[in-house]
């Protein structure tokens, strides 16, 4: 085989023979092994060529291994990177998990913030300092308040207790709603203290909707460079914390509300309890136990409400609440006696609401008040009312009996006196006649008093019945005139009657009682009038009313006495003289009779000028007409 110097690159080597052997690794050519001879005219032997090829294979093998190592190194590096990011995401996951776990724990707000801070500090891949704190926005003071911190200098703890929005890095983070990063103590560190060391910061705002809930402040070593990874992670943490905070705030609000309601329920003076749908107690407030005389709620819980009710009331109670259960009536009120632990009856006035889950009734809640005293008072009242009614009835009966029993002997007195007066026992001398006159006058007075007493008794006991019929008012007035004019004549007083032309010819009412009333008033008028006149007038007061006016020119009635003259047994002081004495029932009976007949009586009077009594009566027809 002839080898020539054809290539300039080998010229310097003074090579006379060259052998180039490709270094093959599988199909790939890694390089070329070149063997050369400096001796002229000397070729490579077959054995030498063979060795060369072998060598080239060895080189190929070595080189291939070297490639493998390199790729292995690369692969290792890649793996490490992957592991790093896995660790990052694992830790991130771990932190998020921890935060999630916090939300299920029963911590106070500050305890929760403390745990959050520790979780952040536990992250290994972020070389932050173990120093920092959490600020929360305080709505009342409109400041960011330092709630928890780790390793902050005492001076800072005091100075940073409350920060304004925009103040320092923390306030800036809150205001800008963006993470504030610093790698050194720059001008944004507005709050400083003596001996403050160089440091950097991540200040992470905790955002929720449009609100800044707070700021997480983390310290960094001086010169720390921020990374995208840090920022992304801190955002995630801040979001998770925001959710936790919101949750905590709502929870706190709920707890406060619940505590408030609980306090109301537990400190209420009323019995408040709940039962399941079968009526078994599932909650009773402390007042229930006190009122019912139990020491522990376990003595009551699980029992049926009927067990505490008075046995004779259970049936009624059960029926009442069964009906509420069936009709789903939302609220009821019922009064019943319960039996306390000591066996005493306690009356309750109980409001019961049904508790519904959707459409189904699942239980009852009740507010019950101890009305024992009220009940006792009611019973006492009803008893005393019964007694009073009974007493009033007895009084009326007695009055009616007494007046009845008085009539018979009065008949004797009056009868014999009149017989004497008629000379039935022979003629009387003047003195005897006068004596008989006195007896008759006194007996008549006694008779009228007995009649008044009987009327009053009947009116008071409600046993007086009206005897209504149609009557002629003109005839009534004539009767009044004939009974009164003689009396008036005796006193030299003018007695006049008048009747309006527009008064109906017929009126409906109890004419005897009307006459009694008018004669009562007119009799009084004559009695108390020394001179002048007494007038009785019937008028049409209104289309559906007629009136009876009794006017006199007598003594008059002072204002202060106007009310009491209509009360039974009252007469104006000093008005009783021998001529005008009376039972004191006249006006009381008059008023009561007038009202019984559906009318009204009024009085106008001037002392020294006279009085005007006006009775107003409705114009009615007989029932059914």
């Amino acid at each position, binding site marked *: 085989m002839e080898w020539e110097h054809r290539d300039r690159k080998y010229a310097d080597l003074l090579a006379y023979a060259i052998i180039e052997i490709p270094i093959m690794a599988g199909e790939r050519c890694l390089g070329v092994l070149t063997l050369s001879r400096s001796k002229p005219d000397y070729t490579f032997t077959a054995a030498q060529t063979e060795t060369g090829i072998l060598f080239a294979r060895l080189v190929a093998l070595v080189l291939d291994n070297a490639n493998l190592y390199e790729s292995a190194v690369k692969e290792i590096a890649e793996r490490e990177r992957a592991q790093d990011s896995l660790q990052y995401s694992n830790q991130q996951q771990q932190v998020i998990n921890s935060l999630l776990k916090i939300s299920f724990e029963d911590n106070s707000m500050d305890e929760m913030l403390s745990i959050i801070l520790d979780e952040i500090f536990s992250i290994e891949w972020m070389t932050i300092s173990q120093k920092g704190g959490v600020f929360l926005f305080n709505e009342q003071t409109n400041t960011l308040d330092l709630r928890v911190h780790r390793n902050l200098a005492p001076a800072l703890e005091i100075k940073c207790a409350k920060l304004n929005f925009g103040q320092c890095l923390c306030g800036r983070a809150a205001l800008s709603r963006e993470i504030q990063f610093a790698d050194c103590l720059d001008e944004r560190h507005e709050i400083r203290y003596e001996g403050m060391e160089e440091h950097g910061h991540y200040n992470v705002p905790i955002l929720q909707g449009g609100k800044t809930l707070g700021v997480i402040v983390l310290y960094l070593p001086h010169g720390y460079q921020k990374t995208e990874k840090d920022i992304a992670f801190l955002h995630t943490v801040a979001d998770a914390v925001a959710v936790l905070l919101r949750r905590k705030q709502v929870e706190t609000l709920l707890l406060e509300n619940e505590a408030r309601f609980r306090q109301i329920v537990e400190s209420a003076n009323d019995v408040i309890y709940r039962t399941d749908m079968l009526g078994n107690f599932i909650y009773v407030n402390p007042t229930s136990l006190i009122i019912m005389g139990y020491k522990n709620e376990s003595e009551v819980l699980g029992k049926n409400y009927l067990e505490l009710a008075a046995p004779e009331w259970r049936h009624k109670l059960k029926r009442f609440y069964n009906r509420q259960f069936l009709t789903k009536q939302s609220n009821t009120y019922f009064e019943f006696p319960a039996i306390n632990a000591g066996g005493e009856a306690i009356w309750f006035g109980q409001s019961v609401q049904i508790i519904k889950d959707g459409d189904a009734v699942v239980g009852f809640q009740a507010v019950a008040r101890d009305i024992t005293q009220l009940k006792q008072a009611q019973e006492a009242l009803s008893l005393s009312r019964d007694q009073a009614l009974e007493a009033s009835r007895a009084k009326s009966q007695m009055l009616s009996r007494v007046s009845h029993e008085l009539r018979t002997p009065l*008949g*004797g007195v*009056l*009868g014999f006196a*009149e017989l004497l007066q008629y000379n039935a026992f022979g003629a009387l001398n003047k003195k005897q006649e006068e004596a008989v006159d006195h007896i008759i006058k006194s007996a008549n007075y006694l*008779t009228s008093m007995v009649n008044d007493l009987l009327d009053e008794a009947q009116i008071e006991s409600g046993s007086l019945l009206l005897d209504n019929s149609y009557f002629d008012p003109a005839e009534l007035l004539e009767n009044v005139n004939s009974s009164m004019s003689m009396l008036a004549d005796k006193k030299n007083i003018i007695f006049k009657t008048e009747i309006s032309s527009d008064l109906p010819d017929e009126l409906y009412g109890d004419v005897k009682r009307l006459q009694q009333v008018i004669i009562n008033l007119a009799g009084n008028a004559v009695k108390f009038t020394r001179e002048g006149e007494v007038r009785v007038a019937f008028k049409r007061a209104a289309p559906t009313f007629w009136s009876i006016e009794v006017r006199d020119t007598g003594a008059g009635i002072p204002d202060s006495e106007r009310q009491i003259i209509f009360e039974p047994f009252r007469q104006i002081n000093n008005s009783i003289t021998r001529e005008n004495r009376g039972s004191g029932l006249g006006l009381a009976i008059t008023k009561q009779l007038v009202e019984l007949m559906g009318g009204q009586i009024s009085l106008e009077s001037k002392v020294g000028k006279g009085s005007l009594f006006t009775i107003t009566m409705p114009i009615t027809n007989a029932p059914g007409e």
Partner: protein
Amino acid sequence: MTKPLALIVEDDPQLSQIFTLTLCELFETESITDGSLALTRLLEVVPHLVVLDINLPGASGAQILHFIRADARLNTTRVILATANIRQAEDLQDEADIVLLKPVSIGQLRDLAERLI
């Protein structure tokens, strides 16, 4: 001419005497103080007038009044009821010819009796 008969049925002796003295000029009077005796007497005589009390021993004035009104033989007999009880007076006022509330005025009784002859 004989005077008409007036039966005075009244258990109170004083009142009975007063009624008798009041009516004796106009009537032949007979006074009875017991209800059942009055009923027995009414079987025998037809009085022109009966002055009747209500609360009586034996039989009540109301019973006697019913008896008189139920007996055709006595349909000319006039009855003046004299009572101290307004309620009873009101209940019986349709059956009696006249009801007088005690104490009865002598003058009134005589006037009324005179008119009933």
